[in-house]
């Protein structure tokens, strides 16, 4: 069959399909609207497959590229519509937070433990070193930084804990922007064969260990611990989790196993996206606690420690027990 005859025979069908795509393609906009396109919604897949057939025929018969381009465009629009991702639903999001995310974390337990070791060991070693040899702090932080740090946690500072100046909201913004960005970068830099993630984890461990160790040494331990215990369960855990996701990514690059390297990376990328989604939520909660609860000066130490204990229990039982038993997963 010549191209002109082919076009003449099927032109109407193509226009009708295009019309349907224009009017009914967007499910949200067309909801409740009467369907006057001449194609019932449930007939669309059949119409789509006919267009696929015609495209294959047109290619086989060597029709002009313009015609093929038009058919392909129709087909692609149908393809995108038929195979689109389901819209996000609140129920699914809730199920992910409560069950899917903890399960994902436990599935990557090995990476998470290694990440924790890379973060906690430098922290503890740094803290202990500074108790024995306080002068080491000067090889890590500049005098200005030390002075700023001491000002933030000075017990004589009556107003707010853990900050120089700034209101609760301002600090909330700072924590959201800085801490979450650090977490997300910890994951992404894992693509450099784990090296980026390892560097970020160790550097943060040393940095936090130095701050804690120095403040403990100069006798500001009361204000320090009253400030940090509240948000630590969320913030420190989230850093470890993004680190674990980054290690998984780098490891899959270095040792893909019985898959192609790209397949292994894609798998790790999916895992990483899920973990970063949950970790971003944890960073958000941590920023909220850090800005509005941790900094309150008037709450006594026992109050802060009790709340911290409750939060640690919540976080750990969420990660260790969440989603056990049911395995239905989208």
């Amino acid at each position: 069959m010549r191209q002109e005859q082919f076009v003449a025979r099927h032109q109407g069908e193509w226009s009708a399909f295009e019309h349907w795509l224009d009017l009914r393609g967007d499910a949200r906009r067309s909801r409740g609207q009467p369907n006057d396109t001449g194609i019932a919604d449930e007939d669309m897949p059949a119409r789509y497959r006919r267009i696929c057939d015609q495209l294959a025929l047109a290619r086989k018969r060597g029709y002009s590229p313009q015609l093929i381009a038009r058919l392909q465009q129709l087909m692609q629009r149908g393809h995108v519509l038929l195979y689109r991702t389901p819209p996000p639903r609140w129920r699914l999001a809730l199920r992910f937070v409560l069950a899917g995310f903890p399960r994902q974390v436990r599935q990557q337990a090995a990476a998470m433990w290694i990440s924790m070791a890379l973060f906690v060991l430098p922290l503890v070693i740094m803290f202990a070193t500074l108790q024995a040899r306080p002068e080491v702090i000067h090889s890590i932080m500049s005098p200005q930084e030390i002075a700023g740090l001491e000002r933030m946690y000075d017990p004589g500072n009556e107003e707010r804990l853990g900050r120089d100046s700034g209101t609760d909201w301002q600090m909330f913004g700072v924590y959201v922007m800085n801490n979450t960005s650090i977490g997300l970068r910890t994951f992404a830099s894992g693509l450099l064969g784990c090296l980026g993630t390892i560097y970020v984890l160790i550097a943060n461990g040393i940095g936090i260990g130095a701050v804690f160790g120095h403040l403990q040494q100069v006798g500001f331990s009361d204000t320090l611990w009253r400030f940090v215990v509240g948000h630590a369960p969320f913030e420190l855990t989230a850093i470890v989790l993004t680190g674990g996701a980054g290690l998984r990514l780098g490891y899959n690059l270095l040792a893909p196993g019985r898959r192609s390297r790209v397949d292994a990376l894609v798998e790790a990328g999916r895992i990483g996206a899920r973990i970063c989604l949950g970790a971003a939520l944890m960073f958000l909660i941590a920023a909220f606690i850090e800005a509005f609860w941790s900094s309150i000066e008037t709450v006594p130490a026992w109050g802060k420690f009790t709340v911290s204990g409750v939060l640690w229990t919540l976080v750990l039982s969420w990660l260790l027990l969440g989603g056990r038993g049911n395995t239905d997963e989208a």
Partner: protein
Amino acid sequence: MTRAKLDTYREVITPEGVALHLPACGPVPRALAWAIDLSVRLGVLLVMLMGLGLLGGFGQGVGLVVMFIIYWIYPIAFEVLWNGQTLGKRALGLRVVAADGGPLGWLPAITRNLLRVVDMLPFGYAAGLIACLSDKHGRRLGDMVARTLVVHVGREHMPSLAPAQGVYPVPPGLQPDEQAALAAFGERAPQLTPARQVELGDILSPLTQARGHAGVLRLYGMANWLMGRR
């Protein structure tokens, strides 16, 4: 034996058994789209910060949250919710799709945008550029890990009628892709300058047995014959 083609499209076989041709996009349009996005993001941020600056500490805090949203969430949300396009990509006629031609899901969008961190290394998207230039389908590292692809959005070509009415029989033995090339000439040549038409037509003088304008007319005739215009 088929020879490798110079085209940059990626061929994907859909579940219906039809090959989908995805025209992969190179680094330059993507960089331009990114630059447009950057200026839009900076502009919005600047306006927001000026407005929020009047509110003191509260405003600064909200401003930082806005900065977080614009930095991290803007590309993810736009690409998933707006057919794979950010504002810059829309301006340049680009779209992010899954590597199988399907629409972009949430997880791939998150992965490809988080991994910008690595593509930006060591400065100015150098790693991404090298990956993009060495990959067959112009993907940066984030695209490879997320299994996504940036494609050109097809522009609708209105096939113009062949200017010549004559019909000239095509010599037998032409392959389908050769026939397609002739038909394409018939539809697209009217958009070219006459000199370029003649230049292209002369390449086919062994087929048309004519040179210059006469050769071009014969090619139009063959295209008409192939299309079935009698």
